[in-house]
């Protein structure tokens, strides 16, 4: 038994993509290495850090715990796909204004995860933000400014 390549087609950041992938390719690897969308980060080996968060068919997921093959037919948004040309997404803008990052490594995952937290709960409380971000690990900030950023973005996004 080998790992013969298989064809997948999906929509990523609004663009149709067709590609041949080995069945053991992780979605995160496919996004970074085949599509060169390197904003999606890999921060751990154990699927615990959340740096690789993307949106898959409307849900925030960890792209390092999914095979590219599983995403056949899916609609995906990565951190590169949320701004409107030069206009940052309200979540990105809020992280910028509140200094919601230091080294920036976890930030794409934080932003993608937080967007879904807010979309699913527009009036999200500080406590719910802290609990909601339990799957995204940041080693620099102590989370305080991240939580502030999400809170601000929630008001802009229509909370």
């Amino acid at each position, binding site marked *: 038994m080998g790992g013969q390549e298989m064809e997948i087609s999906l929509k990523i950041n609004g663009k149709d993509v067709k590609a041949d992938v080995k069945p053991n390719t992780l979605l995160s690897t496919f996004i970074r290495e085949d599509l060169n969308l390197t904003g999606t980060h890999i921060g751990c080996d154990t699927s615990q850090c959340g740096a690789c968060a993307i949106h898959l068919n409307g849900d*925030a997921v960890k792209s390092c715990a999914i*095979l590219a093959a599983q995403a056949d037919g899916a609609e995906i948004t990565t951190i590169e796909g949320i701004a409107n040309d030069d206009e940052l997404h309200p979540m990105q803008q809020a992280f910028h204004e509140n200094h919601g990052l230091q080294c920036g490594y976890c930030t794409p995952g934080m932003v993608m995860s937080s967007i879904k937290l807010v979309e699913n709960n527009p009036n999200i409380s500080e406590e719910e933000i802290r609990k909601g971000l339990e799957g995204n690990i940041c080693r620099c900030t102590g989370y305080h400014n991240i939580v502030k950023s999400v809170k601000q973005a929630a008001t802009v996004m229509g909370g």
Partner: protein
Amino acid sequence: MYELQYSKPSSVNDAVAEIKKSSDSKFLAGGMTLIPTLKARLSSADTLVDLKGANLSKISVSSSEITIGSMTRHCDVASSNDVKGSLPALAKLAGGIGDHMVRSCGTIGGSLANNDPAACYPSAALALDTTIVTNERSISAEDFFVGMFETALNENEIITEVKFQIPEKASYIKFPNPASRYAMVGVFVAKKASGVTVAVTGAGENGVFRCSEIEIALNSNFSTESLENIDISPDSLNSDIHASAAYRANLIKEMAKRALQEMI
């Protein structure tokens, strides 16, 4: 990850036919345990047979039971108005598994079939007289959980749905490991016409178990006071870097008390 093949059949029958083609193939449910395990090369497979296309995701409720399709995701159970209305403890349990990104992928069937000793769902299944329905038969939860990561499932057997009996009242409280969110100890208390059932996850050497000491106490007096003088033996409990057996024994009592406080 070692090399493998991937297939996504569109029915349970096709999935069984597919998996029989090789002796080292595995079913793939939500993948939240299996993919990281494969990634770490702790596991391997000739072929992953993805059950996502097999039409196994659904929730339905009658007056006495909730039926949940095996590929129903944790987020769908947590947000289901049917589940929240008739068995809120189960919705809360599902909404506390992992984090919101894990809940967007992980499934009830995957959780039960994996039978991780620290998983949340096995406690609800054992406390609620649950029937696990497969493509071959129906298995009571009591017979289903055999030991750590072991179930009564045969090779090539697929869980299709899970039927929970709706109790008068229920509550699930867990003490999560702060890093993984798995239960260091989780206690599911169900009060039914036939009596009180208490199932404990995260603590037992052989996985989920019913705690007869607490059940006896609560069947004679359904109050937190009746738990005060109970001693839970640490003898068959887990000891690891996160907690000693004695600590877990104490957590069982404490989580049971908190569950009771929610119910009274």
